[in-house]
C-alpha cells in the first residue's frame, strides 16, 4: 500500500487551518472554514482552491498534428505538437491507455507518434473561480484574460513565475486553473491570495466544490 501523496502546499494549508481529507490517494484540504461559506464566497466574489492532485499528462510527438481526444479529459495546446491532458486521478490509466492506442504508422521508419510523460507531480495546480477572478488575474499577469475564452489556455508569467493558465468555467462561473512548477506553489498561492484580498478572495477546500456541484 503506497503512502498518501502530498500536494505541494499540504503543510501550508494545515498552518492556514485547513481540515484535511483523502481524495483519490492524495491528502487535500476539505475546507478552510466551512464548505457552504466557501462556496458562497466563490459564487459572490472569488475562491482559490488547490487542485494539485489532478492528473496531468504531457504529450509530445508528430502524431499530435490534431488535438488528442480521450474520454473524460481535457486537452490543452501548449505548442506545436505539444499538449497537456488533464483528468481526475481515477481516469488516469484509462486515458493514458487510450492515448497510447493512437494508430501507429505503417511506415516503420517513422518514430512513435506520441510520447507521454506524467507531469502530475511537476505542477502545483490552483483553481481561481468566481466573478472577480479576472480582476484578480489582472493584478498578477500580463495575459489578457478577458480575451481567454472558456477551454482556452495561455502560458505567461504570473506572480513572476512561468505559469499555464487554463480556463475551465464551473458552469456560469468563470474559473481559471493556474499551473506553476511545484516548488513555486506556495509563493504563487500567497501572491494570488494577496492580490485577491481587496475582492474578497478566500481559499476553498474540496468540499466546497462538491457543495457547488450538488447545489447547482
Amino acid at each position: 500500500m503506497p503512502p498518501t501523496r502530498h500536494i505541494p502546499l499540504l503543510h501550508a494549508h494545515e498552518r492556514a487551518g485547513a481540515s484535511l481529507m483523502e481524495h483519490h490517494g492524495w491528502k487535500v484540504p476539505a475546507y478552510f472554514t466551512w464548505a457552504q461559506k466557501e462556496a458562497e464566497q466563490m459564487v459572490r466574489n472569488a475562491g482559490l482552491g488547490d487542485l494539485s492532485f489532478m492528473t496531468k499528462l504531457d504529450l509530445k510527438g508528430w502524431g499530435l498534428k490534431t488535438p488528442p481526444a480521450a474520454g473524460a479529459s481535457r486537452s490543452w495546446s501548449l505548442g506545436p505538437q505539444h499538449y497537456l491532458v488533464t483528468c481526475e486521478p481515477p481516469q488516469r490509466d484509462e486515458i493514458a491507455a487510450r492515448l497510447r492506442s493512437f494508430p501507429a504508422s505503417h511506415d516503420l521508419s517513422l518514430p512513435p507518434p506520441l510520447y507521454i510523460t506524467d507531469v502530475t507531480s511537476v505542477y502545483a495546480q490552483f483553481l481561481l473561480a468566481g466573478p472577480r477572478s479576472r480582476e484578480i488575474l489582472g493584478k498578477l499577469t500580463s495575459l489578457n484574460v478577458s480575451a481567454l475564452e472558456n477551454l482556452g489556455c495561455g502560458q505567461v508569467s504570473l506572480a513572476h513565475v512561468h505559469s499555464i493558465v487554463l480556463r475551465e468555467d464551473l458552469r456560469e462561473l468563470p474559473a481559471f486553473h493556474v499551473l506553476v512548477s511545484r516548488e513555486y506553489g506556495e509563493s504563487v498561492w500567497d501572491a494570488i491570495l494577496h492580490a485577491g484580498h481587496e475582492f474578497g478572495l478566500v481559499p476553498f477546500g474540496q468540499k466546497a466544490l462538491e457543495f457547488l456541484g450538488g447545489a447547482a
Partner: protein
Amino acid sequence: MADNSDRFTFQFDGRTIEARSGDTVASALYRAGRRIFTRSFKYHRPRGLLCLAGKCPNCMMNVDGTPNVRACITPAREGMTVRHQNAYPSLENDWLSLVQRFDRLMPVGWYYKTMTHQWSWHAAESYIRQVAGLGVAPQPGGGSKDYEHAWMHAEVAVIGGGPAGLQAAVEMAHDGSPVVLIDDQPELGGHLRYQKRAGAVASALVDQLRATPSAQIISRSYCFGLYEGNLLGVVQANPHGGAIERLIHLRAKRVVIATGAYEVPFTFENNDLPGVMLSTAVQRLIHLHGIKPGERAVVVATGAPPDEVAEDLSQAGVELVSILAPSEVIAATGATHVTGLRTKSGELSCDLLVMCGQRVPDAGLLHQAGGKLVWNQDRGAFLPAELPANVSAVGEVAGAWLARAMPLPPERVSFHKRSFVCFCSDVSTADLRDAMSEGFDHIETLKRYTTLTMGPCQGRMCQLAGIAICAHETGRTMTETGVTTARPPNPSVSLGALAGPRHHPFRRTPMHDAHDQSGAAWMDMGDWKRPRYYKTASCQSEQACVEEEYRAVRERVGIIDVSTLGKLDVKGRDAGKLLDKVYTNRFSDLKPGRVRYSVLCDEAGIMLDDGTISRLADDHYFITTTTGNLDFVQQWLEWWLVGTGWDVHITNVTGGRAAVNLAGPQARDVLHALTACDLSSRAFPYMACREADVAEVPALLLRIGFVGETGWEIHFPAEYGEFLWLKLLEAGKPFDIRPFGVEAQRLLRLEKRHVIVGVDTDALSNPYEAGMAWVAKLEKPDFIGRNALSRQAAAAAEQRLVGFIMNDASLPQDGAAILVGGALAGRVTSARYSPGNGKAVGLAWVSAKSSAAGAEIEIRVNGGTARARIVEEAFYDPAGDRLRM
C-alpha cells in the same frame, strides 16, 4: 462645490484639520489658514500653493507615511495623517533656510566647482546626504500597505479627462470598443470644473461616458511614460484601502493624448513667495472648494485673460488692487508670504498675487514617445508635429485655444538670484545667466549643468521659461534654441510603484518543512531555499555543525536534499544523437542502466554547465543540470534541436522529482533496509542506475559520488518527498545518520577536487585548463565546441585550475589573490578547512608556468600572505576506491 454639511478631520503635523467633502489635502489646509506648504529643495525657502493642479512641486507632503505626495490632487480622507517634509523643525521655522544666506558660496554647478579633490567629497558627503533630497523613504515592512502592479489591455487609451479627452473617449467607445480613460485629478472635467461658465458641458460629457459600458475610467492616475508598442505606464493613487499606489501596465492599440495645457508662472524677484499663485489655482480655490483665496489681490497679465479671473475674484469678495502687465513687475515683497509688490510705477500692498501666465501644452508624453515638437510663435507653444504611429493628440495639447501671453523670447529678462525659473531645485534666472556665461549655452548642456527641468515636476513649470531665457541670452530664436529631450518618467514616479509588491518568488523543495524541523539554517540559491547546515544541540557554531555533518558522511552516512538539481526527461529515437551533439562526452553508446558525467561547452569551448546523464532505455535519458542552469540547458538543447527533424522530446521534470543523495560508508546498509534492489557493487556498480521501489515509492537510483563516498542519488515523485526523506532518516537511525547541508557538501566535494562549474570556472574556462581533458571526446565527428576545443587541446595552456594545500593553519577566502615571486599569478576559487587534511585546501587558477605539482605559491590571507603547495591529485581518496566499495 464643497458640501458644507459633510465635515471630517485629519491630522497635520499633530494638529487636527477640519476638511469638507470634496476637499483635497491642500485645500483643507489652505482653508485652515496654512500658507507655507513646503520648503524648497536647495535654499529651504518657504513655498505655498502655486498650480493646485499637481503640476508643480510646491505642495509635496508625507501622507500616511508615503513621501512626496502632491497634496493638491490628493483627496482629504477622514483620519489620514499628513506631515510636512524638507523642513526642520517646522515649515514656519526651518533652520536650513539659513542656507540661502550663503548662496554666494553655492553657485550653479557648485558640486563641480567645490568638490575638486577626493577628500572634499568624502568630507562633505555625509552632511550633503542628510540635507539633500526630498522626503524620507518609508521603512520596508513599516506598514501593512503595499504597492501593486496590474495589467490592462484596451483598444484605445485616452490620457486626460478634460473636455477633449472626454469627447474623444465618448466617440471611441461609441461602437463598443474597449476604451480606458486616464485622469490625474480627483474628478473628471479638466478646466471646465473651475472655469464655471462651461461647467454644465463637463458634467454632461462625464455622464455620457459613465453610461458607456465599454469605457473604463481610471481616476486619480497619471501616465508617466508611453513606451514602444503603445505600452503606457500608469500610476493610480490609492486604488483601494490596502494599497498606496498601483502601477498599471496598459497596452492599447491606439493612444489619444488629451493632457491639455497648464499655466506657468512669470519670472521676477521673489516670484516664489507664498501668496504668488497661478490664476487657475485661484479659480480652483474659489470654485472647487469655496475658499476666499485672499483679501487684496494684484493680477499680473497681458491682454484679455484677466477678465474672467477678475470677475471670479470679485465674486469671492477679494479686493482687486490692480491689473498689471508682467513687464511692470519688479519684485514681490514679504518674508514668508507676499505682502506687496514693487512695480515700475511704485509700491502696491496685497496678500495675493495672481499670475495669468502662459498656457503650455502638456506635451511631455508625446515628446518622449518620439513625437516632434515644433515652435509655434502665434500660440507661444511647442506643438506636436510628427506623432508616432497610433498616437494622436487632441485639445489644448495639440494647440487648440492657445494664445501667446507674452513676447517669446522675452524682450527683457531680470536676472536675479531670487527670480526663480525652476521651483524644484531652486534654479534662478541669475543661475541660468551664470551657466550660459560659463559656456553652457546649449539648451541640453544648460539643463544638465543647472538641473533645470530635472526635478519632480520634470520641467513643467520651468521648461518654457528656461528656453525663453536661453534664447534671449544667446540671441537665438525659440526654434533655434529648441526643447530638451523628454524622457520617462513624466512626471516623477515613486520607486515603490516601479518596484511593485513586496513579493519575491521563492522555490521550496518537497522536504522544506522537514528541514525546518531538523533545524535548517537556510540560504538562498537563486530562488531556491536550501539548508546551508543544520543547527543541532551538539554544535555551537556553523563551522562545528558543518564539521559534524562532514564526519557523518566520511565515517558513517549522511543525506542531503538535492531536489534543486535541474532534471530533464529526454525521450525519442534520436535522443542519443542530440546529446552527442551538445555535450562533450559521448552518450549514444551509453548502455541503458549506466550513468555518465559530462560538461557542456559553447562553440568557443567554454564550459557552460555540467551534470550526469543516465540512460533509462534505448530512447529515454535522464539529465541533471546544476541548480541555476536548468532553464539555460533546456533552451540550449532545444535550440540545437530546431530544424534537425530529429525525434527528441525534452520535458522539464524538476519540480516533479524530489532528489536526495545518500552517501557514506554505511549508505548501502541504510538503503538496503528500504528496497529489494540488489545494491552490491557487482549488481549495481559505480556509475550505474536502476529503477526500483524504495519504501514502496517508485524511484530512480543513480550510483554516483559527488562527495566522494559510496552513495546513491535517489530521484522520486515529489509528492513523496517528505515521506521518503523521513523514512531514510528513520532507516539511518541505527547508523547515526545526519542530514547535511550545502556547506558540508561543498567541503566534501572540494576534498575530492570536484569542480563546480560557475564557481571554480568562469566565462574563460575550457576543460583542458580546468584539468578535465578526458571529458571532451574530440574523436566524435562533431559536437558543439569541438572546433575550438581541438585547437585548445593542441595549444599550450595559459592558466590551469589546480588544487593547493596550505602550509600553515591559515584559511584563504574564495577569490583571494595568488602571488608567485611577488607577482600576481592567479586567484583562489574555493577554499575550505579540510578536517581530513588538518589544513585548508582549495582550488585556484594559476598561470601555467607556476602550476607544476609541488610548486609553492603565496596566497593573500588577512592582509598578509601565506604559503601553499600545489597538489596534482584529489585531497581525499585520490584513487576513488571509496566510491566503488
